[in-house]
């Protein structure tokens, strides 16, 4: 079976800091990583490869330096990769991103299963997976934490809900978005990493023309939503001491908590 795994290179947001003067992100020196949920999607694909006859292709989109994420995925055991990189893709919202990825997948030929992380830690939208599925007119299951069975024309998966889970049978081809499950993502192997960095490595780099899209359909121009402004969230410490009898101070505190929608 042909498995495509969607991965994204993201800044490690736990390290992102704001410039206190300008309120802008300080991006210099911030480590980039493969988005954590995507690592679990890749791990799920590689685990399937051990029990089924499968070819795992990684698909990613990003600025030129994001090819590092693709190489790392190859190092973990992906068979080949397609990397979409073009200035025209920049500034894409999830609409334009899903269109671009969808066009690339159509261009890649037969696919049985597409795996993606539930969401990326830089945007937290969880939208691209389902939007790709809809673009390709494939069924989807999101929040998958266990792929129980894989057959020729269907899979059985467990989908996480807030208060439990659902066991779902899903027709193939399909797209699944994955959350951390039982399997820990494996480490890349040094030998494989070296192979991935060779010139002859099976990594194809495609631009807008390669996937037959016009620049007006992708990137910022092809987006339906725009960022109007960004600003730093305010976390000023009030430092208010509440005074009075126990019942009264707690009442005041509860009122403050309600006002700030904390209860």
């Amino acid at each position, binding site marked *: 079976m042909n498995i495509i795994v969607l991965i994204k290179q993201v*800044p490690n947001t*736990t390290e*992102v800091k*704001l410039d206190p003067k*300008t309120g*802008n*992100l300080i991006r210099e020196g911030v480590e980039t990583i493969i988005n954590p949920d995507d690592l679990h999607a890749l791990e799920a694909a590689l685990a399937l490869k051990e029990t089924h006859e499968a070819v795992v292709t990684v698909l990613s989109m990003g600025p030129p330096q994001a090819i590092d994420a693709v190489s790392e995925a190859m190092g973990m055991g992906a068979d080949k990769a397609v990397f979409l990189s073009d200035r*025209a893709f*920049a*500034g894409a*919202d*999830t*609409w334009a991103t899903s269109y671009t990825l969808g066009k690339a997948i159509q261009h890649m030929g037969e696919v049985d299963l597409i795996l993606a992380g539930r969401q990326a830690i830089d*945007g*937290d*939208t*969880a939208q*691209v997976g*389902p*939007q790709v*599925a*809809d673009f390709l007119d*494939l*069924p*989807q*299951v*999101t*929040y998958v934490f266990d792929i129980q069975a894989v057959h020729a024309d269907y899979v059985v998966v467990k989908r996480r*809900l*807030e*208060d*439990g*889970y659902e*066991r779902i*049978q*899903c027709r193939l081809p*399909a797209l699944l978005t994955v959350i951390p499950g039982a399997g820990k993502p494996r480490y890349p192997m040094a030998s494989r990493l070296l192979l991935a960095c060779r010139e002859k490595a099976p990594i194809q780099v495609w631009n807008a023309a390669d996937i037959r899209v016009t*620049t007006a359909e992708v*990137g*910022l*121009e092809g987006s339906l*939503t725009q*960022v*109007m402004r*960004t600003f*730093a*969230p305010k*976390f000023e*410490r*009030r430092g208010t001491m*509440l005074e009075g009898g*126990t019942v009264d101070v*707690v009442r005041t*505190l*509860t009122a403050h*908590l*309600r006002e700030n*929608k*904390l*209860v």
Partner: protein
Amino acid sequence: MAIWVEVDLCDGCRRCVRACPYDAVEIREGKAHIGDRCTSCGACMEACRNEAILTDAQPRVVPDFSDYKGVWVFAEQRGGELHRVSVELLGKAQELATQLNQTVAAVLIGDGVAGLADTLVEFGADTVYLVEDAILRDYRTEAYAHVFKELVEAHKPNILLMGATHIGRDLAPRVSRRVGSGLTADCTELSIDPDEGILLQTRPAFGGNVMATIINRYSRPQMATVRPGVMEVVSAAGTQGSIVTHVTRVSEDRIGTKILEIVKEPKTHTDLTEAKVIVAGGRGVGDAAGFELLGELAAALGAELAGTRVAFEEGWIPASRQVGQTGVTVRPDLYIACGLSGAIQHRAGMMDSKFIVAINKDPYAPIFKVADWGIVGDVFDVVPELTAQVRAVCQVMCD
């Protein structure tokens, strides 16, 4: 498409630098310079006083959307029970609709769920679109997306809101792609732009380090999801609403998924680093029995329990729940520090919490310096009282 600076016209005023949402403009030798991170969004062009920033991009035409009217809310139900977030969204929808001089509608999908329509009207729906079919009993992506496409095409809503639950986050992007509309996830604030009349969607990005206001100028409906607990419930008791029944044409063979089993699990503890609310205790809590009081408060708040190094060493909490330099770093929306002094090592692990409440007997405890609200008092008095009042608040809101 590209953007460039006409150097002769640039006076180095830095307005473009401040306007750039991508941090792509810098001043070099007194002139603006556009770097690699530029996405040609044009924010700098609008900010420039001297029209020194030029582009070859064609201005995009905003289509005429005047026939798209109404603020819609997806009324999410599971097993015939309405999800609270839908009621919360109706509160916000009323406010948006009033500003737009439009009406609020709820979309209720399921099987045998008509009884929920009254509740939706009571909390702000002027119209309830009711879609019932055995095929729609349990949520399935394709079935519900199909219904939404039928309804959106027939009634042309201006705005469509969904709760950012595991169902809403599965459905909303699918619907957005299907109806050809932009979508903004997990908004914490929604308002109407007074000039353009479009929806301003504000949400956190980069792990909450930045807030971004996003607009959806080129497509309708303007779609957004909102997490549970963000918006306030607003009663519209006494108002009238109408029910519009819709018959779907979706068929089983289109759907592609079958639910084999729905399993309810008792709530397992979440990872501390993902907790929205944390109740933490230290030496001042005294003993394991004291931590039981904290546990009750945590349960009332839907919070996770944590503690200091002392609390771990005393065996009151497991190692995984120790916050601080040698434990885990947390950044919840609310951190309630009970009977802990706030040593620097502990503060290092919780300073990024959005709001901090401190309860301590010692008025000079350093924890008060980093707290938003401080209460000087005995944990054994204050915590049970707080638990009782929080329970009372939740009772009122859940009724």
